[in-house]
């Protein structure tokens, strides 16, 4: 399933709803679907802000598919090269007085999915997010060697 969206903050909710319907329909449970939704929210917001630098006249594409036992969301844009995974930083410790406002979106994006990969594909940024339907990839089946 392919979705083409305008590069505006108001399309973020639309992207999340579409991903949500697709993921639930593909057997992802409610909690993992909600987590994938937040990751997509942060990824799309990031494209609007950084790859397109706030230019609302551009488009981005979401490709939704099932790959093996994973729900896969590919987010493609023709903006400035921007690797969101390279910008992820550890969350700061401490209370409000010790912290800067912001800087958490990309951390959430990476941590809320089972797999995240970025490539610069010609003139496109291509980010792939995956959530596994049955189990997390690190978990071994009971009794496995």
């Amino acid at each position: 399933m392919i979705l083409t969206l305008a590069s505006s903050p108001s399309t973020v909710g639309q992207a999340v709803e579409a991903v949500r319907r697709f993921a639930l329909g593909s057997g992802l449970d409610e909690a993992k679907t909600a987590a994938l939704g937040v990751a997509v929210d942060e990824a799309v917001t990031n494209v609007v802000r950084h790859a397109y630098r706030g230019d609302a006249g551009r488009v981005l594409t979401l490709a939704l598919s099932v790959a093996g036992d994973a729900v896969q969301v590919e987010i493609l844009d023709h903006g400035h090269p921007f690797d969101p995974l390279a910008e992820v930083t550890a969350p700061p410790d401490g209370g409000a007085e010790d912290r800067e406002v912001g800087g958490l979106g990309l951390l959430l994006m990476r941590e809320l999915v089972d797999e995240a990969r970025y490539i610069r594909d010609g003139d496109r940024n291509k980010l792939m997010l995956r959530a596994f339907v049955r189990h997390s990839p690190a978990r071994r089946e009971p009794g496995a060697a």
Partner: protein
Amino acid sequence: MGGMVATSEQKVGNASVLSPTGRVDVETTPPLQERLLPLLGTSGAVVVIDFSGVTYISSSGLRALMLGAKEAKAKGGKLAVCALNETVAEIFRISRFNQVVPVYPDLRGALTALDPAGVGV
């Protein structure tokens, strides 16, 4: 527009309780923030945000909570959240946001901790 967050507000004892519903994201955070910050602008204000109707919070919503927590600190007030669903709790864990605002399992627990006189404890 479908994305708007409907936030109800009630007063319980000395505390203001904000109850947003739906997504707290880049689109719906500004109206929530516009209600939250003035409440915390009064010296010694007590505000609880009840998340029982919230499906998820994105980093935009976390930024608003951070601003609220800073405002509460500056004005000698208190800000807490309660009733996080599994997804919101996971987002708080990843971002270590339970160090920024106290988290309570339910509204009564939050009010008992922040405003004991107001709930008759």
